[in-house]
């Protein structure tokens, strides 16, 4: 299956994300609250673009089944954004005023440029890594979560059946829409690099 081939081709990047200090901080609960605050703000900005990329893929797709899948995936992002709005309220972040960090703008510009200009299969190839990676991180972190971890809700969300069903959905869509090509491989790999850069940016901004 294409989704598994692409994941395996990029598994080293995925493991680098799993062992990234930001993710380790979530896993053992020691991540500085300020870093999580930055993450919530930047991730909400990112998800806003991610939702729009699904919407563009839906508009440009063919066949009713694909359209339904993309709308369900879009709804999944909107639910994730509601979760972020909850965090933002708790952490007193004004999501509407968030300015993206350079690494985050690079990622959203890439997604939106792809969704507008390239073919829908490349868009799905660019969007799958985020979904599969978060499912992977959630599942791995859930195995060792300690009592009283302040990031338990984050871990529970991304290891939960609702999110994992969305991961399966986008991967099955990728298998049905795309064939292994240079453009598809490149979109998937670049998105995975953007994921790693995203985590790094959360720790590099100490403002």
């Amino acid at each position, binding site marked *: 299956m294409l989704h598994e081939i692409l994941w395996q081709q990029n598994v080293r990047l995925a493991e680098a994300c799993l062992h990234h200090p930001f993710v380790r901080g979530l896993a053992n609960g020691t991540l500085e609250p300020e870093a999580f605050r930055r993450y919530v703000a930047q991730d909400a900005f990112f998800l806003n673009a991610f939702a729009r990329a699904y919407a563009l893929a839906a508009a440009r797709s063919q066949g009713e089944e694909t359209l339904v899948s993309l709308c369900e995936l879009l709804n999944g992002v909107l639910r994730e954004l509601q979760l972020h709005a909850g965090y933002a309220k708790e952490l007193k972040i004004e999501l509407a005023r968030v300015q993206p960090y350079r690494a985050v703008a690079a990622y*959203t*510009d890439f997604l939106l*440029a792809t969704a507008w*200009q390239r073919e829908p299969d490349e868009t799905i190839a660019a969007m799958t890594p985020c979904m599969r990676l978060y499912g992977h991180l959630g599942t791995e972190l859930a195995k060792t979560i300690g009592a009283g971890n302040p990031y338990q809700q984050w871990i529970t969300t991304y290891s939960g059946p609702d999110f994992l069903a969305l991961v399966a959905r986008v991967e099955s869509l990728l298998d049905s829409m795309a064939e292994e090509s240079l453009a598809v491989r490149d979109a998937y790999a670049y998105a995975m690099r953007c994921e790693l850069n995203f985590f790094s940016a959360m720790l590099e901004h100490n403002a």
Partner: protein
Amino acid sequence: MSRLDGSLLVLRAGTRWKDATTAAFLDAINDSTLPPEAFNRWLVQDYHFADALTSFQAIAAAKTPRQSRKSLIAGLGALDAEMDWFEAQASARGLEFNAPVHEGCRRYCDFLIQAAYREPYPVLLAILFGVEASYLAAWSRLSPKGPYAEFIDRWSNPRFADYVESLRVLAEDNLHKSSQRYFNDVLTHEREFWRMTWEG
């Protein structure tokens, strides 16, 4: 004094303007001390950039009203001729364009493409003016001599300066509340692009 010094967008960009139009890469061209691998890297990456700019400009031309789009359409023809010229330059140096797009170049290209589709035409005019004006200013600081004289002349000659002036008038006659922000973003990408050509 260059005509660009009177541009509102340039003035309001503050120090970003100088940061985007001066670079170690350009100093080394001026001194004829540029390592050939840095020049070759620039040539290949700038070709990829010109390809993305062609897409950007075609979309911008489609969105811009008839009375304002002549310069954009003429510029598109010149850009396509420039790509032919890049191909000839690369072939003479035995370079291939299938080298991977550098991340700094890719970020700039993605920025242009997403903006082309999402932003209204006045913002696109500010972006295009930013791209071409910063190139004119960067190359105009150099003396057209030495092994790269042809390159320096290409982006500092009076015809190119007239084209940039026509873009300035369009951008500044159609200012939008986001024009300055996008113009400044272009300058940040320009600075990063020059840094990438120098550092690899």
